[in-house]
């Protein structure tokens, strides 16, 4: 006979305190009270003998005994008094069930997950009935599915509800969690791992494992080759062409020859045959020309026992273009600068056809329109009357141009000793960006705001800059500044769910990095030097913006461990055989609780307020009867 919840000292202390409190309350309840009443005539009529001078302190000893006995029984129920030897004290086991993506692989007619569930259920059924089990689902995160549960049926239900996720197993974290939970409860028990144990390469030699670890391995002889990653970006030479890279890995132990087919919008875009030695990873590249949006699909054939990574798809965005309307009477001067960029659609119109409501960017060549453009505009050598930026002076043969390189508009502009015949010098306002200056002042000014405006104080094609490389570069910078979203470099990749690691080109401050989901909600990330890390536990799209560079990650492939975890020596394997010591230990708390409650109820009925309530009810019933009799 022993207590499951309390020590004998704790029990005695608790019972002593409760008993003392009961006795004090009892004595207080039955102590003599002084009451001022209206008259004594009815009290005397009650014919109750007057109290003796020497008071008896305990007037209703059975009431007190019944109270104390009931309290004792309730405390025994709380302390969980068990009949049997203490060896039968219930243990608390932590059952780690692997739910990584790999558990969805098929082995015969079953998946690895089915096998793992069977093993977990067999373990639970092998436990003594009093043992408690906590089920922890382990993938990239360790998630407890139940608390320490004495009902094995509930644990089995939780096992049945466990499904493979899309991430790989982080066994180290799961074992640490189990150890912490078990040490916090201070009870005996085992940490049991059920799964294939396929982990990342760095985790294969995890040695910091609990001493009471038991492993129920799930046989894993699945041969699998799968797509690891798809990378896409527009060709640097031809923006209409997508460069497509597909990485394929053989996770199995035998060489595989597989076919890789790529299609865009269900139209074949290419196929290759790959020979994959065991454990090798190969990359295949394709090109595909399209300006339109569509879905790119990559498929491995023939399929294998783990189909989740045999197929991947990624959304291709359409090529964005900037519409430019040029009002000039000499279109040939500006045409080379604008037609050189395939993302620019330029329309040339004579100044007489000017309309202020043109969409996109408007270029005004030495022309002051009656109404200013409603959108963004580039003014080239505007007339002195009512220019967009006040003209301070007109200078002839100014000294060589100086470019300001502290902003994106002047990036890469190195032309020196360029001779200009004449140029307008502008008076800038606060916030204006000076792109180029001569000694007399700025000659190219950019004005940010809702409507972006760039004003050139000279015509590049009618000056010494006409044959300089700086001229198309200047136009490219201006277009990029006016429409950054259109010209932002984009990279698209499809890769596995879980932790995403990105190597950045340069070290950058966290303020310039934005990671967001498809719906725009931010994703927490860490930045360590040039490495950016974030985690996604579910399929979806993540968008990483670093400066003017944007990467879109389609996280749809399952994350797979590369190696198998090797448990350290001394680890127990297989189903245990517990001594049936718990069978000799019977839990009696329900009986004690019922008896204690019944005792308190009996005391209340016999000695408590119940009798007063019944007395009042009887009196209330008698009163109208007596009145009727009197009348």
């Amino acid at each position: 006979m022993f207590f499951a919840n309390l020590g004998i000292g704790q029990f005695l202390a608790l019972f002593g305190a409760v008993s003392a409190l009961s006795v004090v309350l009892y004595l207080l309840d039955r102590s003599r009270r002084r009451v001022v009443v209206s008259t004594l005539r009815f009290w005397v009529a009650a014919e109750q003998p007057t109290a003796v001078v020497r008071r008896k302190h305990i007037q209703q000893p059975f009431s007190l005994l019944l109270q104390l006995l009931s309290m004792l029984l309730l405390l025994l129920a709380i302390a969980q008094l068990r009949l049997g030897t203490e060896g039968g004290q219930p243990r608390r086991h932590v059952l780690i069930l692997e739910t990584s993506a790999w558990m969805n692989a098929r082995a015969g007619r079953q998946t690895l997950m089915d096998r793992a569930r069977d093993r977990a259920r067999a373990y639970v059924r092998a436990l003594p009935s009093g043992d408690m089990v906590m089920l922890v689902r382990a993938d990239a995160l360790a998630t407890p599915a139940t608390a320490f549960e004495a009902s094995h049926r509930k644990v089995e239900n939780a096992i049945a509800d466990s499904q493979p996720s899309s991430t790989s197993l982080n066994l180290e974290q799961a074992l640490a969690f189990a150890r912490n939970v078990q040490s916090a409860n201070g009870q005996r028990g085992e940490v049991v791992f059920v799964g294939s144990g396929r982990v990342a390469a760095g985790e294969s030699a995890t040695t910091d494992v609990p001493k009471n670890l038991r492993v129920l391995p799930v046989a894993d002889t699945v041969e699998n080759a799968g797509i690891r990653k798809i990378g896409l970006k527009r060709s640097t030479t031809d923006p209409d062409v997508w460069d497509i890279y597909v990485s394929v890995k053989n996770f199995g132990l035998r060489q595989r020859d597989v076919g890789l087919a790529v299609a865009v919008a269900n139209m074949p875009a290419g196929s290759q045959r790959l020979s994959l030695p065991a454990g090798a990873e190969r990359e295949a590249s394709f090109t595909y020309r399209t300006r339109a949006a569509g879905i790119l699909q990559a498929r491995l054939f023939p399929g294998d026992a783990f189909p989740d990574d045999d197929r991947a798809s990624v959304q291709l965005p359409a090529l964005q273009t900037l519409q430019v309307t040029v009002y000039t009477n000499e279109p040939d001067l500006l045409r080379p600068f604008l037609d050189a960029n395939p993302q620019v659609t330029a329309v040339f119109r004579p100044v007489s056809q000017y309309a202020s409501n043109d969409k996109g960017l408007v270029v005004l060549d030495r022309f002051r329109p009656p109404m200013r453009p409603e959108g963004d505009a580039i003014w080239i050598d505007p007339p002195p009357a009512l220019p967009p930026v006040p003209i301070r002076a007109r200078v002839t043969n100014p000294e060589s141009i100086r470019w300001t390189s502290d902003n994106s508009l002047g990036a890469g502009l190195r032309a020196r000793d360029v001779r200009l015949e004449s140029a307008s010098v502008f008076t800038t306002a606060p916030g204006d960006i000076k792109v180029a200056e001569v000694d007399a002042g700025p000659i190219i000014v950019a004005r940010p705001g809702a409507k972006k405006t760039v004003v050139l104080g000279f015509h590049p094609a009618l000056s010494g800059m006409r044959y300089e490389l700086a001229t198309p570069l200047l136009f490219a910078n201006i277009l990029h500044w006016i429409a950054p979203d259109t010209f932002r470099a984009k990279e698209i990749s499809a890769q596995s769910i879980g932790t995403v690691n990105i190597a950045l080109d340069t070290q950058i401050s966290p303020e310039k990095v934005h990671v967001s989901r498809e719906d725009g909600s931010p994703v927490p990330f860490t930045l360590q030097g040039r490495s950016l890390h974030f985690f996604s536990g579910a399929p979806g799209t993540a968008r990483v913006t670093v400066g003017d560079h944007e990467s879109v990650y389609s996280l749809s492939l399952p994350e797979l461990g590369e190696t198998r975890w090797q448990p350290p020596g001394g680890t127990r394997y297989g189903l245990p055989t517990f001594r049936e010591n718990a069978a000799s230990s019977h839990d009696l708390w329900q009986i004690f609780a019922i008896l204690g409650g019944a005792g308190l109820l009996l005391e209340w009925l016999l000695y408590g307020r119940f009798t007063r309530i019944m007395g009042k009810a009887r009196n209330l019933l008698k009163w109208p009867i007596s009145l009727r009799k009197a009348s």
Partner: protein
Amino acid sequence: METAPLLDRNFLEKLERLTIHWQKSFAGLVGGHNPSRFSGGGQEFLDHRQFHHGDDLRAVNWRAYMRLDKMFLKMFQIEPRVPIRMLIDTSVSMAAGDGSKFLYARKLAAALCYVGLVRHDAIAIHPFSTHIGEGKRCGGGRHRFSPVMEYFEGLACTGKTDFTAVVREFISTIAQRGLLIVISDFLDDTSQCERALQYLADFGHEVFLIQLWTEEDRVPPWTGELELEDGETKRLVKIQFDEEARERYTASFDAFSTSIQQLALRNDGKYVGVSTTQPLEDIVFGTLVRSRGIA
């Protein structure tokens, strides 16, 4: 600190449609069953009051209605009236416990006074315990009610109840018979209150006995060893009180109430037993009306 008035305005307005009733005819006095204040033309006009459902439309002041858009009833004086006397118990037993019994008695007495004032009855209030205290006479309409309220608010409990002495004093000083309302707990340890009340009836008064009690008076909530102190006599008794004793106590109390009731009925009077837990409005418009004490 300003205390709340005994009766609020809404309750007083409801009381305006009531009348105090009595059954006996007294020599030389008009009234009697007094079913209505309005005995016809030729009587002297006294006052107006609010019109209530059931009033005689012939007595409505239609001129006032045309001007004020409100219906007022004309009232006329009939003299001399049957005097209404009210004996209100101010002994210490009325203040036993939380004092709710005495407060209730004052509220009930004030309500009956207001009913009488509205009907232009002549009312005399006599507080009593060992002797009859300084009384208050009132009459002449509802606008005389404010001094009555102040009088009731100023009453305090003092002394022991001695019905025999009080009745003797009452009969010797007041010769005119009439309606006599007694508001008391009738707990008199000094003498037999039943006999004294019988004297009053025999003298020719129509007695209207209103017995007040608190729940503690009827069903004491205590159990165990009790040291009881009589609030009036300060006598101490130590007893052991249990459920059986409580039942005997309540039976004894009920028997006493029944004896008071029988005394009233035997002498063509009225009796009402009131527990202070019952709302005053329920007592006035329910129990008192059913007993035909007011209508």
